[in-house]
């Protein structure tokens, strides 16, 4: 879980807008791990995760002038990241879609974990629809609240809850043998 300081974020955003690129690096360092984790769980391989995360940061930098400070920076950049991840998933041809086995084998992190169970979990995640995967990933790996997940995905909290319920049900069926 991540507990960023909104005040710190706002200050770094302001400094960046004032021409201080180093301030943006502060934001990168603060969010790189959690964003990369989210991207990795969404996309299933480290290269795509790295690309998507980097693109999200670059897009955020490009559009920082449009960032509305009444919102949280991390919600905003999560939204950018999720759009990027969903674009990547939409751009994949069916034949390019990673099989669960490949996704597991391709991840250095997963290899390091070398746990069959963990590999099964990642594989199950990749079997979810992108919408369902997104809510699970943002909730469990991003540590976002329903409202924040809704902000990141551009959907109401009610939809987040509904999707979470369906996604968990599906994961439970895949991983724990829950009845459909």
């Amino acid at each position, binding site marked *: 879980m991540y507990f960023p300081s909104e005040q710190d974020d706002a200050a770094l955003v302001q400094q960046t807008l004032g021409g201080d690129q180093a301030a943006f*690096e502060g934001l990168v360092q603060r969010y790189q791990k959690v964003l990369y984790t989210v991207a990795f769980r969404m996309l299933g391989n480290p290269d795509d995760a*790295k690309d998507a995360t980097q693109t999200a940061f670059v897009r955020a930098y490009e559009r920082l002038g449009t960032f509305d400070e009444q919102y949280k920076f991390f919600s905003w950049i999560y939204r950018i990241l999720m759009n990027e991840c969903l674009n990547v998933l939409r751009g994949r041809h069916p034949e390019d879609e990673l099989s669960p086995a490949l996704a597991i084998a391709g991840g250095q992190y997963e290899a390091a974990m070398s746990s069959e169970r*963990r590999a099964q979990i990642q594989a199950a995640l990749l079997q979810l629809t992108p919408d369902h995967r997104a809510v699970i990933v943002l909730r469990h790996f991003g540590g976002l609240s329903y409202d924040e997940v809704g902000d990141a995905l551009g959907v109401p909290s009610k939809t987040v*809850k509904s999707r979470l319920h369906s996604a968990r049900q599906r994961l439970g069926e895949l991983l724990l043998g829950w009845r459909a």
Partner: protein
Amino acid sequence: MRLSPEDDSLLQGLLDGALEPADREAAERLVQSNGDARRRSAELVELSRLLDGLGGAEPPADFSMQVMHAVGEVHAHAKINRTLEASARRFSLGERLSQLMDGGFGMGKKLMWGLAATAALALVVMKFVGYPPIDGAQGTIGAAKRYQADQIAPSDVKVDDSAQAFVQSDVFDQLMKDPDARQMLASPSFRGALASPEFRGALANADFKAALASPDFKAALASPDFAKALGSPEFRGALANADFKAALASPDFAKAMARADFKAALASPDFAKALGSPSFSKALANADFAKALAAPGFAMALASADFAKALGSPDFAKALANADFAKALASADFVKALAAPGFAKALSNPGFAKALGAPGFAKALASPQMVAAVGLRQ
């Protein structure tokens, strides 16, 4: 007993810590009093633990550095766009532009062009073809392109340090105000030429950069014909030749390029082909030959399609490789002969061109008497 959707939602809210105090108490009561609720709650907790067990993933160690490198490129590109937009606005104000063009460059105009022309080329290259192709940067910017191959975003553009410094300079701002430069940059042929590896390689050559710095070269660059010549494969090939680049830097060649007839000749495929030959490049390195190029007679000869064709022939190229022939070409009399329609036509004759390439003929041409004779006969 199965749980109602409302109860299931309550348990999920309890798991996520998303309930108001009253709802949380209700959920806890449900779990205590209802076996199905207890089982469902336990299942949700187990699933949550499974997911949490995956933990976080670590980005590459140099990830933030890569991101900041990409951000730096975006920053530089934004500067380019701002400058272009600002210049375009000013350009629309004719009076302001005239003022800038007439007096704005002042004494520093030549120096400005020396820097600006070179950097402008780099600018165009990086803008349209992604220059330089730094392997280490592929992972940063190329990555972003992977899924957007059909469009170029600012972040896709590579900018090296020197180019960044340039676009942030006043020199760049001044360059953008120059209509000649703008015309040159807008030429598809010119942009195509810049996209070639040969041109990019030539940019690293001190002689070529020196050539770019000359006002005459600048004037030539503004010519559509010259831009067209630059775009030819032959000219690109010639740019890879050190002798040719050195020749380009000579005042005589620059002087030649400033002339309309020479620029028109450059647009000829045959002449461009001739330029691309190693022999021509070598001849260009000969001060006498370069001087001949600048002579009005040579320019007149160049205006002849036959002469241009002859220049492009392998035999003429062979002749050019001969120092004596190149020297002969530089003589005033021979240049005079070249300008004669008859001689140009004769040059286009394969037999005559072949004769020119013979060592004996070349040697003979080196004789002042022969040269004079040739010139007189025309």
